[in-house]
């Protein structure tokens, strides 16, 4: 009494988890006069408990507690509604608990079906005891009462799929019952979770599973197909060939596949707003099997094949594919029929299996690079406002300096030429590594996989790189050079106007010169890196090689500046006076004095240029920037260290600063951007196991 007031409040009008399909069914049920045919939730147990079977009208029963419509049985309560009428829980006069199913429409068809099944005996079937006629000439099926929940309830308890062990137990029980039915020459035709019940008890689930509503199903199936009073709950388990009037045992296999799918994922494979949509999906759509792991994926895929000829046609086959099944023969006393067709496993929908046409490697590389850049930008630890500012500043700079227009003009013709070359000469014998890529994809470690022994991924990565084919090496190198040139253009365009500001130097030609020097320098570094990676191991010969590259770069820088008649800008703010360097200070030497050309700009003699570049190239360990296994792709530290080294080198052999620092930092930057780099995912993959695949794969 004291609690009655707060408890007695208005409830929501519908259970929240009723699907739109249910609501549609409700409307249909309300419209159609023979409303009792609409409700599809049948059986001796509490099918009405499940949300999907929720129908407001469904729980009205003709007989009340204590009624005795059938001699010898007292009705206790209504249980649910079958395809024909009501199901009651009743006790006999002696106290035997039974389920009574009232068959309203006195048709010969279903009565014959029940007679056929009356003496079937299997632990996984709801036992039929008798078929009786009452005084009003209604037929009653007297059958076993199963006290526990239905599979529908069990699935509803696990919205994301039930534990695999539990699902397996259910499935084995259902499969055993269906196998027995098939062996007895009977097709269930109406398998669905609402028809499958679980007896209470301590025994394993598979021994307690009971399949109900068999023997009544032919009529159900045909009537559901023809009328608007179709039960939506059943359409989810209907095989596509039912539309064509085929009712082989394959439709039970199909329904079993749907049930297994639903148990493992919590959803039926084909959901829709209307009956028609669901039916259409059954006919045409491929199920999404990504949430199901093998071997269940194979079973579901085999059971859900559209063509009954290709389907896993016998239940024994499905059970034999289950893990841990020792003796499939134990399921059924009858040996499996011999006329089974050979079944070829369908591991995934056929339309996803087409190999991709080969992609042009440079384009592929650019795509990967842009992907990486996007990821890097996304992971950049900056607030969105800061990112936005940087983005717009960069964009404005690119537009203002004209790079945005220079790149397409220069790159597109170059790329078109290369593409023609590639498609004519190289494309033909490039076989796509589809077969190799697929297993690599399958082997992708799952997040919760136990970690195995870790391998020396450095060793593996180096080996992998060594074992690349010559073409792969050449392609990669060409790509790197191209990217380095691009990066150099961008850097030059940014640095040129900045450096030229307030001096006599011409901004445009300075930008071009800077870009050219950076490009040449990074090319030299990349090429020498490629050579030293293959041939040299000690750092002295590497430094020697770099010295040569540096001398060449200095030479080129001088030559270009002279050809363009360019004055190089310099700033006196950096603590170094014009031509005032250690050599002169300490030793009174002035080997190669620079000469001035206008305000804040000058020219550097060939010797000075070569000395500066040679020194920096020999001092800095440039091969680190091309290293495939460097820590980060673009290291800030490497750029900073190079700039510092460039400044210090300027103390020894004079070069206009900060131009020299910018040039060398730019070279490092461009080199790192262009050099291939082993991504962390690949490192993890290599460390987990010596698998080959991905960008570089072993060729026999």
């Amino acid at each position, binding site marked *: *009494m*004291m*609690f*009655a007031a*707060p*408890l*007695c*409040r*208005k*409830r*929501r*009008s*519908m*259970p929240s988890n009723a699907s739109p399909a249910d609501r549609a069914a409700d409307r249909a049920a309300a419209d159609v006069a023979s409303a009792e045919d609409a409700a599809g939730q049948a059986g001796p147990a*509490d099918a*009405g*408990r*499940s*949300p999907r*079977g*929720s*129908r*407001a*009208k*469904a*729980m*009205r*029963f003709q007989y*009340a*507690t*204590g009624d005795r419509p059938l001699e010898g049985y007292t009705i*206790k*309560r*209504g*249980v*649910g509604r079958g395809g024909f009428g009501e199901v009651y*829980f009743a006790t006999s006069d002696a*106290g035997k*608990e039974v389920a009574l199913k009232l068959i309203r429409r006195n048709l010969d068809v279903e009565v014959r079906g029940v007679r056929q099944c009356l003496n079937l005996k299997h632990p996984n079937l709801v036992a039929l005891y008798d078929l009786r006629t009452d005084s009003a000439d209604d037929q009653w099926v007297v059958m076993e009462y199963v*006290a526990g929940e239905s599979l529908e309830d069990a699935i509803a308890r696990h919205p994301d799929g039930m534990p695999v062990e539990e699902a397996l137990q259910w499935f084995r029980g259902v499969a055993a019952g269906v196998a027995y039915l098939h062996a007895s020459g009977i097709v269930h035709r109406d398998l669905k979770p609402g028809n499958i019940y679980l*007896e*209470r*008890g*301590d*025994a394993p689930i598979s021994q307690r599973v009971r399949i109900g509503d068999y023997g009544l199903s032919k009529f159900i199936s045909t009537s559901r197909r023809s009328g608007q009073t179709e039960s939506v709950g059943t359409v989810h388990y209907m095989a596509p060939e039912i539309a064509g009037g085929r009712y082989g045992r394959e439709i039970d296999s199909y329904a079993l596949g749907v049930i297994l799918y639903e148990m493992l994922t919590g959803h039926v494979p084909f959901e829709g707003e209307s009956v028609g949509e669901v039916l259409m999906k059954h006919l045409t759509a491929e199920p999404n099997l990504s949430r199901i792991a093998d071997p269940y994926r194979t079973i579901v895929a085999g059971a859900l094949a559209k063509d009954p000829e290709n389907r896993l046609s016998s239940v024994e086959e499905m059970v034999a594919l289950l893990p841990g099944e020792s003796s499939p023969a134990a399921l059924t006393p009858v040996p499996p029929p011999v006329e089974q067709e050979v079944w070829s496993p369908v591991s995934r929908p056929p339309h996803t299996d087409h190999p991709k046409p080969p992609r042009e490697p440079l384009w592929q590389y650019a795509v990967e690079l842009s992907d990486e850049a996007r990821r890097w930008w996304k992971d950049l630890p900056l607030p969105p406002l800061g990112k936005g500012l940087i983005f717009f500043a960069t964009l404005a700079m690119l537009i203002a300096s004209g790079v945005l227009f220079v790149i397409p003009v220069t790159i597109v013709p170059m790329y078109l030429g290369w593409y023609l070359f590639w498609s004519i000469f190289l494309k033909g014998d490039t076989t796509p590594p589809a077969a190799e890529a697929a297993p690599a994809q399958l082997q992708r470690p799952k997040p919760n996989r136990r970690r195995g022994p870790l391998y020396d991924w450095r060793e593996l990565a180096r080996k992998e790189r060594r074992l690349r084919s010559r073409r792969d090496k050449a392609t990669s190198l060409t790509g790197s050079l191209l990217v380095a040139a691009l990066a150099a253009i961008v850097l030059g365009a940014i640095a040129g106007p900045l450096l030229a500001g307030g001096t006599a130097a011409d901004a445009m030609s300075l930008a071009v010169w800077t870009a050219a020097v950076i490009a040449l320098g990074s090319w030299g570094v990349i090429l020498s890196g490629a050579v030293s990676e293959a041939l040299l191991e000690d750092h002295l010969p590497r430094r020697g090689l770099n010295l040569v590259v540096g001398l060449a770069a200095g030479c080129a820088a001088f030559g270009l500046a002279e050809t363009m008649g360019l004055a190089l800008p310099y700033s006196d703010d950096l603590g170094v006076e014009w031509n005032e360097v250690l050599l002169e200070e300490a030793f009174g030497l002035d080997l190669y004095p620079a000469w001035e050309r206008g305000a804040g700009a000058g020219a550097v003699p060939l010797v000075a240029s070569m000395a500066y570049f040679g020194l920096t190239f020999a001092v800095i360990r440039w091969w680190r920037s091309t290293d495939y296994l460097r820590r980060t792709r673009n290291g800030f530290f490497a750029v900073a260290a190079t700039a510092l080294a460039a400044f210090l080198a300027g103390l020894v052999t004079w070069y206009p600063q900060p131009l020299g620092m910018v040039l060398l930092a730019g070279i490092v930057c461009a080199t790192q951007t262009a050099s291939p780099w082993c991504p962390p995912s690949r490192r993890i993959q290599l460390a987990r196991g010596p698998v080959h695949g991905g960008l570089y794969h072993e060729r026999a």
Partner: protein
Amino acid sequence: MSRALQDRPTRWHRGLSPAGEGVGSLSWSLRRTTIGRRQAEEDTVSGNADSGGPVRHRLLWVDGVGGFLLMLADELTIGQPGGDAPPDIAILADLSRRHARLSRREGSYVLTPYGPCEIDGRPIDGPTLVPDDAEICLGSVRLRLRRPHALSATALLSIESGRRTAPAADAVLLMAECAVIGPGKHSHICCPHATDEAILFRGAEGLRCRAGGPLTVAGRSVEGPVVVVPGERIEGQDFAFCVEEVAEV
């Protein structure tokens, strides 16, 4: 006789008094009424408050949901059926005749073991408070006691290990002041197909029922709370139930 003393239920309610007025006193008097009637019945049959004649059970049959043993007393013995003094909750299992006693005291449940008992896996040897959603093991029988509604002391005792009660029911409803039959999770008897709640509560003439919508009792439409007469079906908008009184077999 010492056993009879031990079982005397008044001991548990000594602290409660019909103090105050209104709902509290009404509730108290209602509780006294129901307990009193039950004792009177026992007295009439055998002349002894403790050893019983035919124990009468109430079964609540809810269409589409299940059958429930309706227990109104605050003190219930659990054990094996049969003998001169059958327990209030008889379970067909390998138990002693009086295996344990479940009592409701000020809204919580206390289990007093007479045989081997466990609560949530811990063996108990004296009166122990049963928490909500606890698993009670009496020998090999696993029971679960749930109190779905926070405002009501009513609990649902279900057998999880597949044993049957006598008379057979899906669960035992230990009803305090009231019980909710409805679609929500907090309902004591959960029927998802229903859209409205019905409340069973103790009234002056025994059990009564009220619901948000109109009720139909034995074919007649009735407004407001109705008296639950055993054997008469009570229908709401989308639920129907019936209370049946059975003599112990």
